[in-house]
């Protein structure tokens, strides 16, 4: 059993056993899928209802990924630092990079579980998707980008906000606010011009629109997020956020004074 497996196992058990984490990452998005699937489809032509439900399921799956990266990960880092585990780890013959890989793998596994559960509930509520195999694979790529960007933001929060509750609440706050103003939880077309520009730059929103475009259709995404320029921008900013978070985490959390 290696260091990566040990950290992966410990982190995922901690994610699965904390009620707050389960609530914000799984129960809350599912609740909104249930509410949205039945209350936002009144006076809507019956042939598009299932696609609107599909778009809602995707939005809330993205929100689950955001919460996992932006709140659960920094909460976990802050908790380990606050209770002295990072000091203990620094005294041991272990590699900080392996600790990092273990945490990220745990995050990806837990995020995927949350997203799958939210999507299944959406499906149960009547959400339907139209996709090709290529479209599905591309969507998985965008899901990965959302997880990486969220993890990057989460690592920045976990590095600079020392207290557990502060880190978790900051992450939840950033996830809720940015999801609301960037078109993740609201239709892109209903956003004012300035927020539409933000939605294109904010990689989580543009990835979310890309998934909606691929699995539900252009009308529900509001614009074409799969143009070469837009896709490049989405990939670059996602990776920059992830690398920024990684550098901050490795430099400040594991720094010897």
């Amino acid at each position, binding site marked *: *059993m290696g260091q990566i497996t040990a*950290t992966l196992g410990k982190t995922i058990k901690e994610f699965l056993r904390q009620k707050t984490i389960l609530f914000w990452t799984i129960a809350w998005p599912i609740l909104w899928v249930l509410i949205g699937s039945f209350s936002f489809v009144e006076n809507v032509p019956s042939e598009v209802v299932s696609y609107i439900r599909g778009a809602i399921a995707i939005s809330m799956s993205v929100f689950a990924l955001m919460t996992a990266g932006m709140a659960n990960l920094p909460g976990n880092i802050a908790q380990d630092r606050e209770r*002295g585990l990072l000091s203990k780890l620094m005294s041991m013959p272990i590699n900080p990079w392996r600790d990092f890989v273990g945490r990220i793998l745990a995050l990806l596994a837990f995020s995927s579980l949350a997203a799958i559960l939210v999507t299944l509930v959406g499906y149960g509520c009547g959400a339907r998707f139209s996709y090709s195999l290529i479209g599905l694979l591309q969507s998985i790529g965008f899901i990965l980008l959302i997880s990486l960007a969220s993890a990057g933001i989460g690592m920045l929060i976990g590095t600079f906000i020392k207290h557990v509750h502060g880190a978790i609440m900051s992450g939840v706050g950033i996830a809720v606010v940015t999801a609301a103003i960037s078109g993740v939880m609201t239709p892109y077309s209903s956003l004012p011009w300035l927020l539409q520009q933000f939605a294109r730059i904010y990689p989580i929103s543009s990835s979310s629109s890309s998934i909606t475009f691929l699995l539900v259709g252009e009308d529900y995404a509001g614009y074409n997020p799969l143009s070469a320029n837009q896709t490049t921008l989405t990939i670059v900013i996602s990776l920059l956020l992830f690398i920024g978070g990684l550098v901050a985490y490795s430099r400040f959390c594991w720094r010897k004074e």
Partner: protein
Amino acid sequence: MDAITVEKLTKKYGDNEVLKGVNLKIAEGEFYALMGPNGSGKTTLASIIVSVRFPTSGKIEIYGKKPENAKELIGYVPQESFSSPILTGKENLMYFAGLLGYSKNTSEKTVNELLKKIELSEDANKRVSDYSGGMRKRLEVATALFPGIRILILDEPTTGLDPSARRKFLGLIQELRKERTTVLLITHIGADAELASRVGLIDEGKIIAEDEPERLKKVSGLRDVINIETAIKSEKVAKILGEFSEKKKVLETDVGYRVYCKDVEEATPEIVRSLDAIGCKATKIETEKPSLEDVFFKLTEKMVREVS
């Protein structure tokens, strides 16, 4: 061979010099206690030895190696409770076994042996959040007892434990001495330090005295100590008691004062009379042998522990 060698160690945070040229040698198998008040630099010294902090200057060797190259030899138990409360005791130890590179089968065997050693086998599958403070501390010590670890460094391990848990915990540490594990105990509790084979007293970043506990007491020149519990504590009471104490020093305790007299039998009735005269009743008076906390007080005029 020395397990730990520290020479002329300094540590500065800006203008604040926390360690001022500390020298320390701990032999293999020795139980050494470093005792001092909060802010004396003892935790900083431990964290430099375990390679969590850098020294500003000076030299440290662990069995002749630099600390960062000897991490596999040291088991460090920081002051905070670092075990995960939502994992079971066994899961916590399995996590550390994994970090140390044990295979699944070896982990299982080693962890079961460790649980037996710390007497937690029956509670192994309970979540740590259901453990008492003493059980949790024993579990955390077990993370520093994996095979191959030769030096155990414990930072304030008994703080917050009730007397029974504290005794059980110290019993475990005494057992480890039989296995020739070198122990460095960081503490501010004199009774804990008394168990060590050698004690270093640290104050303001310097080791001010170092010897076997009984020799430290003898060299300090302290004889009997009168422990007085009073109905009230005030400056006036302390001043009156000071008249009976060597160099007019009295140590304030949780429930009263400790007075350092040359002739206990002669001083005791006089103390009672003087306290009665100001309307302060001595509720309990007993004579004790001096403790390491008394020695520290004699040398520095400071208390090792804050009075609660």
